[in-house]
């Protein structure tokens, strides 16, 4: 890598540990000036941790960061900004109620202030100059609310450049964009590259990396596997995927003693689309099977299954339960029909944080089985005690308020709440996240037992090895569509390459 270009950013020997996890191990690589540098890796490879260190949110335990040859230490995000590193997160941080100019100079109004009044005309004029210099056509007096997502991204980029950013970190910038808007973003990136800015581009979509990046660094299990110059060839793509997955490439055969794929279809989707980006999904779930769902960020897997459960967001298509089409339904009738849903954001969507465990776990059960509106508290207590033992929920008493439990135990309460409801179809969105290794196996066993009892399970998980171990079939979802259905022989490399767009059917 010696083509004479100067180094914009040097990262040397970064280490970072969290309790129980060595998230980054001796991470070193160099980003050159005027280059777009891709960063890829599986979920949990350490990408987000690295971004947070570069943007000053976390502190590295050891290692050096040099910006333009000068060693820097970020004790807070402002220091990172001041040394020329700007971060554009997936969730854009523009403020809807300000105008473009006000947002662009947010926090720097002092420059335009005289006797306590802000000179907005001057601000608009200067914004116009900045935007024109970059080549963005945004109206400074326009309210941010009326901008499209890609225009908001332009505003973020302009903000970064106006604050003299030399390096811009972009974390999954395309996850909320349509295909057309992705094109706009790539144009924008090409424009600012010519301004002498380097970009670190993080994405799940390998195609994007190959399209715009000059170099790519592959992270795996917190380590840098390699940094390579990007070539747009099929072999290179395969090589990157191999580097991402590593030696642990596993092929697992499904090995089920129970009878599955009986002709009993419990749930079927025909040409199902939503206004949240799910595109004409065809899917069948059979009696007693575990259907694994794998997909990266922005694959719309959560949107799809949440829509099926809630009956919201659907734009076209059919839902059939036990071969009977159901037209209009809501959450209450989904639960009535025996569908259970474990939300991905368990704390915000699954828990009553200031109610006791004994009210949380039997909640849906109470909903289904109560006489004349009275709760069967004896049954509720039994069920709560049962799951407290089964999932090993650590608490002094089942009357403990959920807030006081540790994060892992809270997750278990959400899972117990769903399992206690005795549903026939279970949609589990990331049931293993935030759960320790020992309990993970127990939960996998429980899920397996449920399938053996004849329940049908849809399991969405980013933990691929576990998913491969437990699923009867795996569907790979990308950009709101099913790109591959795999039966029997699950190959890790194959699944990942479909999920990141390295292979298409």
């Amino acid at each position: 890598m010696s083509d004479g270009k100067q180094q914009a950013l040097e990262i040397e020997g970064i280490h970072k540990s969290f309790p129980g996890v060595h998230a980054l191990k001796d991470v070193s690589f160099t980003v050159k000036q005027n280059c777009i540098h891709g960063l890829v890796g599986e979920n949990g490879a350490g990408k987000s941790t690295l971004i947070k260190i570069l943007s000053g949110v976390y502190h590295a335990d050891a290692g050096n960061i040099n910006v333009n040859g000068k060693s820097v230490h970020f004790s807070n995000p402002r220091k990172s900004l001041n040394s020329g590193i700007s971060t554009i997160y997936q969730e854009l941080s523009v403020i809807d109620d300000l105008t473009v100019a006000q947002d662009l100079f947010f926090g720097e109004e002092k420059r335009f202030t005289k006797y306590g009044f802000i000179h907005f005309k001057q601000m608009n004029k200067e914004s116009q100059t900045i935007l024109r210099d970059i080549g963005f056509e945004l109206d400074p007096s326009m309210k941010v609310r009326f901008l499209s997502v890609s225009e908001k991204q332009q505003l973020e980029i302009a903000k970064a450049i106006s604050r003299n950013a030399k390096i811009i970190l972009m974390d999954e910038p395309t996850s909320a964009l349509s295909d057309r808007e992705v094109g706009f973003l790539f144009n924008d990136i090409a424009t600012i590259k010519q301004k002498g800015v380097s970009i670190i581009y993080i994405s799940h979509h390998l195609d994007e990396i190959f399209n715009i990046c000059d170099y790519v660094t592959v992270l795996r299990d917190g380590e840098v596997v390699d940094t390579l110059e990007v070539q747009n060839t099929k072999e290179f793509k395969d090589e990157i995927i191999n580097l991402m997955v590593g030696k642990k490439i596993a092929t697992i055969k499904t090995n089920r003693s129970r009878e599955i794929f009986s002709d009993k279809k419990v749930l079927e989707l025909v040409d199902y689309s939503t206004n949240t980006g799910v595109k004409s999904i065809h899917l069948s779930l059979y009696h007693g099977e575990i259907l694994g769902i794998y997909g990266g960020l922005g694959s719309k897997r959560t949107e799809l299954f949440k829509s099926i459960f809630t009956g919201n967001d659907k734009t076209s298509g059919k839902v059939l339960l036990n071969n009977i089409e159901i037209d209009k339904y809501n959450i209450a009738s989904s639960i009535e029909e025996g569908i259970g849903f474990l939300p991905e954001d368990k704390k915000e969507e699954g828990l009553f944080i200031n109610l006791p465990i004994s009210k949380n776990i039997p909640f849906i059960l109470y909903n289904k089985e109560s006489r004349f509106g009275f709760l069967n508290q004896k049954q509720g207590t039994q069920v709560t005690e049962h799951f407290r033992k089964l999932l090993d929920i650590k608490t002094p008493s089942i009357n403990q308020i959920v807030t006081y439990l540790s994060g892992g135990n809270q997750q278990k309460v959400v899972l117990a709440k769903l399992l206690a409801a005795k549903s026939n179809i279970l949609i589990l969105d990331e049931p293993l996240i935030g759960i320790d290794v020992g309990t993970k196996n127990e939960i996998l066993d429980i899920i397996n037992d449920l399938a053996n009892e004849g329940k049908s399970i849809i399991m969405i998980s980013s933990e691929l090895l576990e998913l491969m171990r437990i699923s009867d079939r795996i569907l790979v979802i990308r950009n709101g569509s099913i790109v591959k259905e795999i039966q029997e022989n699950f190959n890790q490399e194959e699944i990942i390459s479909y999920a990141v767009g390295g292979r298409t059917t």
Partner: protein
Amino acid sequence: MSNGQDLSKRIRLRFNQNRFKADFWEIYGIPIAFVFLFILFSFLHENFLSFDNIMNILRATSIIAIVAIGTTILMISGNIDISMASTMAVAGVVTVGLIVDFNVNQIIAILCGLAAGCLCGLINSIFVIFIRIPSFIATLATMSIYRGFCFIYTKGYSIYGDQITDAYKFIGRGYLLKIPMPVIIMIILFAIFIIIFKYTKLGLYTYAIGSNEKVALLSGVNSKRVKIILFILGGFTSAIGGIIMTSRLGSVQGGLATGMEFGIITAAVLGGVSLAGGKGVVSRTLLGALLLGILNNAMVLLNISSFWQMVTSGGVLLFALGLDSLKSRQE
């Protein structure tokens, strides 16, 4: 590493101690204050502990306590109804108006008054749930509207007449086994609502909605229906309070119960209902109302001017709210 574990253990221990303190005051704070004031006032005034005075306190507290039931359950769900004093007036005007001006049978008139209260609650719920106005603002508006209608009907005069019989006045003035009727009604209502909010789906759902409405929805709760029921129950308890009041007065006027929302909300908050929702117990509101009752009674016995009573009432409300805010900050 062991040092780090030590530290985290110590922090956790410290946290547990603090939590214990918070829990302790949350559970025992008001009862302790109650006992303390009770003992203090019985020393300060000889008549404070007499049977008559205690019945006096209970009777004076009963109307506030009854209406505060509705306020409590609404606040547990994360809503509030501040139109309750106006709703009391509506129920009173409808009942007495029907009896005096239209010669309607007293029992039917009372039922109509209760229905009017429920209707006020239903109207509140429509603005809050379907038009999505925050409940504080929506009921601030209806508070003025309901009160306005009361004055429009009464034209600013009192309504009274011979049609109001002793039987009607018995509700507010009578005694059963030496216990005033309003107190008996209060005890019955509290018993019913304590049972509902401890042992039924409605109770569980109310707490669930106040705790996290999104989770409640995803768990299959029809939160709109639950909230409509709660607002109607709020109107219902207000109507009972209003009717008892007219029975005690033997008449009604448009300004019935003006300013009472203050004491009612104070009683609920003193009882431990959180402004943030999800927390509180119906039975404790009774304790909050009694605490207020003792304070007011003592100030009358001790000849403290009513102007100072106003200052104290505001102070007590601020104290109760401050306690609630400190508690939620600790969490």
